[in-house]
């Protein structure tokens, strides 16, 4: 491009005789472009207001640095053409004290496209605002805000779209609040049927950490129960006759009403318990055989002397059967000692003298056999198991 100064004005300041000094100067530049050319103005303005060192307790005078610039480009072609204004404004205010100094860039962008024929055109403003506030010392109130007004208008009488795309990105540190206020106004000015839509899509995602299900339980633990006792027959203290009533409490199983069936039998040991291959038949035990019930229970006293007895239903309950057999023959003793050896630590079967079948282990396989008299041998052992 060839620039040519068409007009030029100068203001001259002179103080009497001597030297003259140009204080203001206006220059008009006329630029012309040829076919398929482009017109561009590049102008750099730089103003500096120099500060003066302020003595302690003194006053700093207000100074201002302002650039006013108007750019107007016009392309006169009727063919495809483009218009663009690239403008950068940079203001910096540096201060040492916590005075509230505004840094403001007022910017107006105006683009106009005149329609010359049935072609599609677009008007778009791309504006990026960034206002960082850095370098302050101490606690000051800082306000950072972006005020942006976008107005899209489509004047065509046929299908047209006016869209405003706006993105907010705010971040605040310390106790500041990050807030985005968004107002969408869509106006359709066409004469034909046209809808004005403001579509705002908000997406909120909450990360699911856990899902906890809580059931509502209203159980007072009320149970009903009843018992009875038949008074009259004297044999009630001798026979198997528990008086079992009813109860809605299912945590405890009452004893069986029917008496266990007892019969006569010989004391018999078998191994293995299933499909036994070793069998030893002994005489029935002497009196003083013991049938023990052993339970795991907590039986403690608190510091205040209250007795606490507790046992869980699933805690183990052991039954032991202790017998002494006399009058054994040598062959029976030999078989018994062999039986103790082969069934060591294994489950064996025991049929007691009341014809009850037990399954368990022999607790003392090292029990001695005493030869107390001629053809009289005695052995006692303890059996742990269940019926």
């Amino acid at each position, binding site marked *: 491009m060839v620039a040519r100064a068409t007009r030029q004005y100068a203001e001259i300041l002179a103080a009497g005789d001597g030297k003259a000094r140009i204080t203001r100067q206006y220059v008009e530049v006329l630029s012309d472009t040829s076919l398929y050319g482009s017109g561009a103005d590049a102008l750099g303005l730089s103003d500096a207001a120099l500060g003066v060192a302020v003595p302690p307790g003194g006053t700093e005078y207000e100074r201002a640095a302002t650039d006013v610039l108007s750019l107007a480009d016009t392309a006169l072609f009727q063919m495809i053409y483009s218009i663009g204004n690239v403008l950068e404004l940079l203001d910096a205010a540096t201060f040492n004290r916590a005075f509230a100094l505004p840094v403001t860039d007022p910017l107006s962008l105006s683009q106009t496209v005149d329609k010359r024929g049935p072609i599609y055109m677009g008007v778009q403003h791309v504006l990026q605002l960034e206002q960082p506030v850095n370098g302050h010392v101490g606690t000051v109130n800082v306000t950072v805000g972006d005020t942006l007004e976008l107005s899209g208008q489509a004047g065509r009488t046929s299908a047209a779209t006016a869209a405003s795309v706006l993105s907010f990105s705010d971040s605040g540190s310390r106790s500041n609040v990050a807030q985005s206020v968004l107002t969408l106004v869509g106006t359709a000015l066409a004469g034909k049927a046209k809808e004005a839509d403001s579509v705002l899509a908000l997406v909120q995602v909450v990360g699911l950490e856990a899902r906890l299900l809580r059931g509502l339980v209203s159980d007072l633990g009320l149970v009903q129960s009843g018992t009875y*006792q038949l008074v009259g027959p004297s044999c009630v203290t001798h026979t198997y006759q*528990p008086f079992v009533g*009813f109860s809605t*409490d299912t945590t405890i199983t009452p004893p069986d009403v029917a008496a266990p069936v007892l019969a006569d039998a010989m004391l018999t040991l078998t191994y293995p318990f299933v499909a036994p291959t070793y069998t030893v038949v002994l005489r029935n035990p002497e*009196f003083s055989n013991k049938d023990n*019930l052993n339970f795991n229970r907590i039986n403690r006293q608190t510091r205040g002397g209250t*007795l606490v007895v507790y046992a869980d239903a699933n805690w183990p309950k052991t039954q032991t059967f202790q017998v002494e057999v006399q009058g054994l023959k040598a062959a029976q003793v030999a078989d018994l000692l062999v039986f103790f050896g082969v069934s060591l630590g294994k489950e064996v079967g025991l049929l007691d003298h009341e014809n009850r079948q037990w399954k368990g282990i022999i607790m003392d396989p090292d029990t001695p056999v005493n030869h107390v008299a001629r053809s009289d041998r005695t052995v006692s052992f303890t059996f742990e198991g269940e019926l």
Partner: protein
Amino acid sequence: MMILQAPWPGLTTTTVLPNPQFNDMQARQHGVTIKRAMDGTRYTYVHTTDSRHKLTYQFTMSRKKALELRAFVRAYYRSQIRLTNHKGEVWRVWFINNPFEFETTGREGPQPGQETVSLTVECEGFLLSAPPVSSC
């Protein structure tokens, strides 16, 4: 006779036992520790409990009744029991002896099972009601 009912308080099962043998016992559960200082002063440290008593009964019963008591113990060894003893006293107790040792002591023809079983029962609990104490 002795009446055992369980579980307390929702009584469901009643077992009637014969009267216990002599030498039944009833005792408080308090304790005292006596210390004597160098100058001969006697100090006592007591361990008090609530109104709890320990009861000990020894029963001799038929084999059938022993089986019934055995089933009763297996069902209610972890429950409180309502006990009505031969003196008419009503107690709320726990079974505290472990193990329960059913010992066949001898043969007794007229009784069912034709055997006699001996068992010692130890209980600990509270007196609920008692008849008037006799003067003798």
